[in-house]
Structure formats: C-alpha cells, structure tokens
C-alpha cells in the first residue's frame, strides 16, 4: 500500500554516497565538483572581474552571478537541446540568492563574480549539488565568505519523510506500484553551517505544515553531512601545505 522501504535500501535520513574534489578547472580562479549518487555538478568561479554590460555594475557592492547548465546528455531521457531554458534561468537565480548571503560583496564594488556550474550526469537534486559545488569553488577562489553553504533536498514520499530524494523517489508512482499516488513533496534547501539559516527553500508537491517543520529538522542533519564532505575536500586540497 505504501512506501515501506526506500527503493535503494537507504534509511530515511541517509544521503547517497558523496564525493567532492577541489581545484578541477585550472583556468578558473576557483573550482570544485560535488557528486551525490549519480548527480554530478562541476563548478568554476571567475572574478572578481569587470561587469558587462557596464550598467549592471554597482558602485556600492559587487555582484554574484550564477549560471546553471545541464549538459545535453545529462538528462534521464532524450537529449536536452543546448541553450538556456526557463528552468535553468530560475535555478541560476535561486542559486545566486542561496550563495550571496555568505559572500562579502562589499569587498569588490563595481565587479562581478561569475559562478558557472555544469552537470555531466543527473539523478535528481541537481540544484542542491550545484550549490554545494559552487560554495566550495567560491571558497577555493578565495572570495571572502562568512559561512559555508550546504544544500540537499528533503521530502515526503507517501508517508515517509526522507533526505536526498533520487529520480525514482521523485517519480515514485512509476517505480513503486504500491505507492499511494499522492504527489511527492520535494523540498530543496540550502543551509548556512553556523547559523542554520535557510538560503534556499523551494517545494513542489503536497505537504502539511507539521511535516514541513519536521523536514526542516531532517535538513539540518542532512546539510551537516554535506558540510563535512565539503570541508574535507577543501582541506585535502591544501593537505600538502601542512
């Protein structure tokens, strides 16, 4: 009748296996990739540099600009036509908003920091992996930051509240014949490590207020696990300097 156990055997609060690496694009000021399950995001930071078109420049503070791109062969079905989509533009915007609160933008007035994220393969949770990778790349680029941003999706699948949904869980009706068929609630979040404040919060599906608050508690532990992986990768980059 219901979602008795997770399709891939994880516990409700388990994340998929993660890997992260810093300094992966030599041309960039900073770069990193973050893998969670079969979702893989590569991020590169360029700048601070001059803003084009010029009228966008702000003399009081710099601009943080994110660009999210799925590679044409990274989707779960047919090839994705290259070029920007409404979805990619919206994700780019919420990514910028998720990362900007930790970046000291006053440090580079009139300039822009560009963050480019490319995904070679995906299995849900792409905007979260993109944010986690981008935060590492910003740190690697030496952009002044007051906290780390870690991102993961939480959600409700039938009556289970789970962390880090994969593609099959997002489309549970197709993959679990016993599923109730109620819309899955998919809630990507980004959290600041020190203050536990949210800088990304989206949801689609159906959920009660009580369940939402429980999900946000799950998100605290889940983003902490992401944070550990991010910090480990950043430290590994500089291990030889110890």
């Amino acid at each position, binding site marked *: 009748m219901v979602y008795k156990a997770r399709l891939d055997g994880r516990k409700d609060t388990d994340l998929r296996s993660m890997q992260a690496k810093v300094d992966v*694009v*030599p041309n960039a000021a900073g770069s990193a990739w973050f893998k969670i399950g079969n979702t893989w995001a590569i991020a590169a930071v360029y700048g601070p540099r001059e803003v084009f078109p010029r009228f966008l420049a702000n003399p009081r503070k710099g601009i943080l600009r994110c660009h999210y791109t799925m590679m*044409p062969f990274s989707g779960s079905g047919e090839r994705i036509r*290259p070029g920007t989509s409404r979805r990619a533009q919206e994700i780019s915007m919420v990514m910028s908003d998720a990362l900007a609160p930790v970046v000291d933008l006053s440090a580079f007035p009139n300039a822009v920091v560009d963050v480019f994220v490319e995904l070679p393969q995906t299995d849900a949770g792409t905007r979260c992996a993109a944010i986690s990778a981008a935060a590492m790349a910003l740190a690697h680029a030496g952009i002044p930051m007051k906290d780390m941003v870690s991102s993961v999706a939480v959600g409700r699948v039938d009556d289970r509240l789970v962390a880090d949904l994969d593609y099959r869980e997002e489309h549970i009706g197709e993959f679990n014949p016993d599923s109730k068929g109620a819309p899955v609630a998919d809630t990507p979040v980004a959290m600041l490590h020190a203050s536990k404040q949210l800088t990304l919060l989206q949801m689609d599906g159906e959920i009660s207020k009580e369940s939402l608050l429980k999900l946000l508690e799950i998100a605290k532990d889940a983003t902490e696990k992401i944070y550990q992986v991010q910090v480990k990768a950043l430290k590994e980059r500089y291990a030889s300097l110890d």
Partner: protein
Amino acid sequence: MIINQETIKTLASQGKRLDGRGLHEYRQPITIETGISWTAEGSCRVQIGETVVLAGVKLAIEKPYPDTADEGGIMINAELTPLSSPEYEPGPPGIKAIELARVTDRGIREAKAIDLKKLCITPGEKAWFVIIDIITLNDAGNLFDAAGLAALAALKSARFPVVDPKTGVIDYKKKTDVSLPLAKEPIPITISKINGQFIVDPTAEEEKVAEARLTISSDAKNVLSALQKGGEGPLSTHDIDVMVDLAFEKAKLLREVLRKNIP
C-alpha cells in the same frame, strides 16, 4: 602575455617552446576515461595536458531524411563553456564553437566512420540518429585534437538503449550490449606554424601567436577525411607536405592511446 608571445616566436626559431617541449612533442598526460555519464549512451573525458573535454553520445529514433531514406544520421555539437575559460561567455555558440563542431563532424562523417545504412530500422520511416555533444571543461589549447579524440572515444564506448518491441519507445534507463557500427578511427591532428616552424599540440598561448594552423583528419590507412586551414598566414605546398606527414605520425600516437583505453 605580450612578452610571452614574442618569446614563443623567438624560441620556435631555435626549435624550442615556452613549456620546454620539443616542437613535435605532445603534452602529457593524454588520458581517456569512458563511462563518465550514466545518462549518456556513450561518454568520455579526454585530457591532453591541462586541456579537458567531455563528450557524450545520445541516440534517438527519427524519420530519415527524404534524400537518404535508408540511412540514419549523425550530428556533432560543441559547447565552449564559460566554465572552461575566462574568454568564453554564456550564450549561443560563437564561430569558434561552430568551427570546432563542424571540423570534428567532417572528420568522422566523410571517413564514413559510422555506417549510416546500418542505423536504418525501417527505410523511409525509422532510423537511429547519433548526436555527439562535446563540452569543454578546461581550454588550455588544441581543442580540435581533444574534441576529435573525445568524439571517437564516446562513439566507441556507446551502447544502444533498449527499445520496447511493441511500442517502439526507447527505455533510456536500460542499455543493450550492442555498440555502434564503427568502421574506422579518423583522428584529427592540428599542426600550427609559428615563425616558420611547425609545432604540434599548441597551448592556448601558442594558438594566439600562430600564423596558421592546419587540422588534418586521417584514418589508420593514412587516408585523409577532413582538412581545415585556419589563421591568416599562407601555407606552401611544401608546408602541407611536411604537415600531413607529421599528422600521420601523431594520429598513430593518439590512435594507440584510444585503442589501449577502449579495445
């Protein structure tokens, strides 16, 4: 930058290069890693020195073109991502990306590396179409050779997805063990001319200094399948004689790397 450019020219006339390589020496490592994207039917990461490109193959069933009703098709697209170099900007492909895609496409298409007739399912109705996307991750020069090698490696590693025999719908989540009908391995090699000297595997800086370049695609039997001259400097027939021989020699080297990684 300008100082380096003058130095590159002076060094070339002495048979030397800024990074210490010989004129006819490739950067190391040259690596090919396949299966880097589970969502693609075939994929790879190719690295030549600090230049890194990814390539992915997607397969789709479409109606054949009316003038080639018994053939499938192939399309190659290249994206010079702003992630891979500060010189690239977001937006539709510029002329550099278009040239890269078209030269890579010609090398494979004109060699008839893929037997397009074997991609036909029902003449005039259904055939397989092969789409290769080349995505740059770090442009440190010589994208032509890296893209050509990546396109070939992705093709070699590709496997057809499962097709439902009743509905004819592709299940992209499941792959068969059937690979593409690849008959040849045409490999593009780019020779640059700097101060009258020929160099292989140019860095991004060397590309800016070069008077001319010639990209030469050739197969294992030294049959040429595509040429592309670039740059404003003219080339003599003697230049071309020397450049083609050099391309044959280096294509052999890259073909060995390809075969070692994907038997």
